[in-house]
């Protein structure tokens, strides 16, 4: 029917079209999700919504405690996770020789850590931090009472720090790799020690990468709900968390609770959409700044 050449042309065009359609359906899906959530949440979003506490059995009011809870969660998480991640990345880039048998193991551990389901981190937080570390602390310092051996913001943050560790490590590593070899060699040739080279040359030059890693980790930590389901997040609290051993409200958990466990799901639709919108804007802004920073970093890498 068709000539061979024409057939080939049809195949070629249809393949190109199929790939194009696939690519743009992904773009469309992203736009549709964002559009629907913006459309649904914009009406209920106001300064009042952001700065008020939930009222009337969670059917009105705002999400201020959830925002504060999320903020505290990511701050404690970053304080613990970012330094550890940065140092691990330094080790993986600067301390590894071909003789080192443990470095590949560490790299594998980091990859594995990135692949473990979030819910398993939650179980680990419950089993290790709360049941083991927390109860251990309690029985050591104040036997008979339960202070640390229960879900709280510290254990939730530590669990989250562990979850986001690979994110930090990968970005910092990428940044360290863009520091030119010549800079290191020059530093070493001038008589600086390895340690001086790392702290005075490599690290200042990879500050962007550390920042990118921290931002991505915060974005991931703010969005994950599964690890905090039973390590510290609470449905509703009358007061803000005031100590490391208090529970907290969290944006993602709030969305989950309001849309599945709330007594009146239909009536609170506005709150649900608006909370999701706040969460989405938060992660979107963070991700975008990380993408921008990384873009700058890659530009530098290309220039060399």
């Amino acid at each position, binding site marked *: 029917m068709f000539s061979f050449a024409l057939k080939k042309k049809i195949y070629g065009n249809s*393949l190109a079209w199929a790939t194009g359609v696939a690519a743009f359906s992904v773009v469309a899906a992203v736009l549709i999700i964002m559009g629907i959530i913006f459309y649904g949440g914009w009406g209920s979003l106001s300064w009042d919504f952001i700065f008020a506490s939930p009222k009337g059995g969670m059917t009105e009011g705002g999400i201020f405690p959830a925002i504060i809870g999320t903020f505290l969660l990511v701050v404690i998480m970053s304080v613990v996770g970012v330094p550890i991640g940065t140092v691990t990345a330094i080790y993986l880039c600067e301390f590894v020789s071909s003789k080192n048998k443990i470095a590949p193991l560490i790299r594998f551990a980091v990859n594995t850590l990135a692949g473990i389901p979030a819910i398993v981190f939650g*179980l680990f937080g419950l089993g290790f931090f709360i049941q083991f570390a927390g109860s251990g602390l309690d029985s050591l310092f104040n036997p008979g009472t339960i202070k640390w051996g229960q879900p709280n913001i510290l254990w939730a943050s530590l669990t989250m720090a562990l979850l986001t560790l690979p994110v930090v490590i990968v970005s910092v590593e990428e940044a360290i790799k863009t520091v030119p070899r010549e800079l290191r060699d020059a530093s070493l040739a001038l008589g600086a020690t390895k340690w001086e080279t790392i702290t005075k040359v490599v690290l200042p030059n990879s500050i962007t990468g550390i920042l990118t890693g921290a931002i991505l980790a915060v974005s991931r930590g703010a969005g994950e709900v599964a690890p905090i389901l039973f390590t510290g997040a609470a449905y509703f609290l009358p007061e803000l968390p005031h100590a490391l051993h208090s529970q907290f409200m969290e944006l993602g958990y709030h969305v*989950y609770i309001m849309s599945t466990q709330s007594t009146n799901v239909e009536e609170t639709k506005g709150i649900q959409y608006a909370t999701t919108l706040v969460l989405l804007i938060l992660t979107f802004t963070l991700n975008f700044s990380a993408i921008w920073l990384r873009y700058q970093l890659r530009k530098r890498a290309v220039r060399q």
Partner: protein
Amino acid sequence: MDKKLLLKKKFRPGEWFAERMVSLTAYISLTFIALIFIFVFREAVPLFKDRSHEVAAFKAAPLEEMETYGSEMVEGDAGVLENPSTEDKHALHVSKASDLLAKDWQPISDQPKYGLWPLFAGSFKVTLIAILLAAPIAILAALYTHTFAPKWCKELMKPTIEILSGFPSVVIGFFALTVLATAIQSLFGFEYRLNAFVGGVAMSLAVIPIIFTISEDALTAVPKSLSEASLALGAKKWETSLFVILPAAIPGVFAAVLLGFGRAFGETMIVLMATGNAALMSFDFSEPVRTLSATIGAEMAEVVFGDFHYNVLFAIGILLFIISFSLNLFAEFFVRQKLMKKFRGN
């Protein structure tokens, strides 16, 4: 001055200490992988303990008191002791590890049933739908960005994919629960609003970025010489991409699909919100399902600490850990290394 002394590296205790600290910190992630396994396992182990003793001891106490009432019942002693213990097994159902192989999951009832099969079926159903949807789309999209796309499209695809991978799973879950479920129900007329199909479609959104990114990396890793040779022999662009680049990148693409599978299998919030959470043993895609991960998420908050149910949930966690770990191991060492070897030519 002695020349040897000058050339010798001066020992700086501060730096020595700092370098040791760096190495120690680097071991943290290694340590925690082990700790995760140990501590999740530790909470699951009592599962394999024989619980009939506890229940028997609990029941035996009143029995002994009964015995003291009638001293003439000595000859019937054996019978009295034997009968209740067999009855107990029916009345106070002793859960044991082999219960996990049963066909029902009904942990909250007088006769709790802890069969994991429906949960496995649920997880596989949702994961299968997610992969069947996500893999073709993501691989084709990766092929598009790699071969066909004009430059501005490439610049558009990368951030879009990053934004998609940056979507919190709870946002995707919320979208599926409120919008997608209704849309799919009115489109296909399913009986239940929340079902395996909705969960699978939502899950594919979470899996696409992984498969896309790793496939794209694999496509880019194919040496330029291969495609140049193909083009030089007169093959068209699409022929080169389909018959030269894609086959060469297949191990990487396979690894991408495997890792996507692992992600989908362990993802919790999306399935918790969008699948309806009914532990049914069926292979109908339009029915609600309960996955392994969602079971942990939904039930952990309600269980009694140290209970059999509690241990079962940790055992499910260990299962998820092992599955993701072995998929990772397989993707990393078998598929990727094979790919590397193939291109280095040894």
